[in-house]
């Protein structure tokens, strides 16, 4: 028995070394002496960014625990207002009434613009909003009606939980009906490869995801680009917000600050959003 005990201090020393050895670098420096739990909930569009940031922070400092839950914008605002979480995310700016009632402090860190996209071979490069609604409702179903080839329009949409779908449906289609005949794909990436493969397809992706494989369609004369989303001239967009009840706690503040460091911006861009500078 005694023999085993002799190893114990060694084991503890090893554990301690293991805990404190990770190198702190650049953007993560501010978390050095922090410890504790940070609870985040709300908007589903935010989750991938939150997860990546949390993973980086928790790897650099295992004393910090960050939990992330979904629930949607309404839930995020309500939970942070009631003090159940430290940061409540929302895909819309909290209303004046909400800010007032809960004493919220609003922190916007990115814009999410959603662009209709077609195959680069498609000659149709601009549409009006009314045409777009008719296409997704199934009323316009041939490219010929829009000055293109005589082929059926193949519609691609996203699953119900997609934040990208929510923005496009609310602001691009004015909450219009989307026909049941539309194909459903699971991610921005899958949408891109579906439209890139299909010369007669039309879908939509977050503006940050647009590359040479798909062609953005100008809506009412405005071409969706990172620039037009940022200056507000392209309207199918929304801000991504993180709200705190009053001034953020020290850990919450460092987390939100991390999102505006170069490393944070890189994570935001990676998920197709446009970071605010």
């Amino acid at each position, binding site marked *: 028995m005694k023999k085993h005990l002799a190893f114990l201090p060694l084991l503890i020393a090893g554990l301690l070394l293991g805990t404190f050895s990770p190198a702190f670098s650049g953007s993560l420096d501010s978390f050095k002496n922090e410890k504790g739990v940070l609870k985040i909930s709300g908007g*589903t569009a935010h989750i991938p960014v939150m997860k990546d940031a949390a993973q980086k922070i928790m790897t650099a400092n295992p004393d910090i625990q960050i939990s992330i839950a*979904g*629930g*949607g914008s309404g*839930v995020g605002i309500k939970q942070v207002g009631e003090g159940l979480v430290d940061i409540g995310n929302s895909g819309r700016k909290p209303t004046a009434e909400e800010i007032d009632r809960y004493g919220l402090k609003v922190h916007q860190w990115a814009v999410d613009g959603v662009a209709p996209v077609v195959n680069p071979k498609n000659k149709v490069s601009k549409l009006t909003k009314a045409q777009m609604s008719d296409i997704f409702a199934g009323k316009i179903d041939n490219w010929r009606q829009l000055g293109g080839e005589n*082929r*059926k329009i*193949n519609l691609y949409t996203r*699953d*119900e*939980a*997609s934040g990208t779908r929510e923005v496009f449906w609310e602001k691009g289609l004015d909450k219009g009906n989307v026909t*049941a*005949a*539309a*194909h*459903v*794909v*699971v991610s921005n990436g899958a949408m891109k*490869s*579906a439209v890139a*493969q*299909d010369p*007669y*397809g039309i879908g939509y992706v977050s503006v940050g995801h647009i590359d040479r494989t798909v062609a953005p369609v100008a809506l009412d004369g405005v071409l969706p680009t990172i620039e037009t989303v940022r200056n507000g001239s392209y309207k199918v967009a929304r801000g991504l917000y993180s709200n705190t009840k009053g001034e953020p706690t020290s850990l919450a503040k460092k987390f939100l600050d991390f999102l505006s460091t170069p490393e944070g911006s890189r994570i935001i861009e990676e998920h197709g959003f446009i970071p605010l500078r």
Partner: protein
Amino acid sequence: MKKLHELVAERLLCLSALASSAITLAILAFLVVMGLPLMRAGGVLPLVYSPWAPFQGSFGIFPMIVGTCAISLASLVLAFPLSLGCSFLIAAVAPSAVSRGFRRLIELMTGIPTVVYGFVGIFLLVPIVRELFRSGSGMSLLTAALVLGIMITPTMTLFFCDSFDRIPKSYLDAAEALGASRTQQLLHVMLPLAKKGMLTGVLLALGRAVGDTLIALMLAGNAVQVPTSVLEPARTLTAHIALVMAADYESPEFRSIFTCGIVLYLFTLTVTFVVRAMGSAKDEAA
């Protein structure tokens, strides 16, 4: 002392058997309990019959049930003749060296992950289907059924081969002594004797086709509608579960996927029981 040991061992074995069967039942109970709020709100039948329109508060899974049936049955129709041909070749026609190599190859094919089939399908088959029929995007019931058919062919072929191998050699010798050719032996001796084993293979392949998620998710287009032609996109129950999974846990659409789970569970259960029943019937006959 020894008796006590035996008693303990017996009890332990009994306990583990109970535990594993309890888990199977617990899964069904879990599905029912999780799906209960929605079923209580609108009844079970509307969930099965009504359309899927979550924003209008309708969570029916009827299009997905039709999609699953259509895609898996179509894949079976495609895979059956293929498997029959392959197993004939292996069991009766080809020289033994060729048939052994061929069999190894098919055994290897059962191990290919379905995502690989799906990936190949999306880049090779989808454009071909799109340009060949000039209707729709190429992501359709037909495309998914074709790939799914290829995916389940090895399983079916191996089952067919095994049931051919179980036929006593004396039967074949007898047929040969009567002057039956290789083809005649196949049609009049092997096929009738292997029927039951082959049916098991078909049912298990059907189970695989119904349970597969990725191929339908990647190739069928996932449109929530009852397809009216094989060139239209469709959504299967499994793909539906995968798509709705990301919804938040309290939402009714998330609850509704438990109904899909129950339907799939009952289907698999039925297939298993039918296979078992046939197995025991065969034992009695032997």
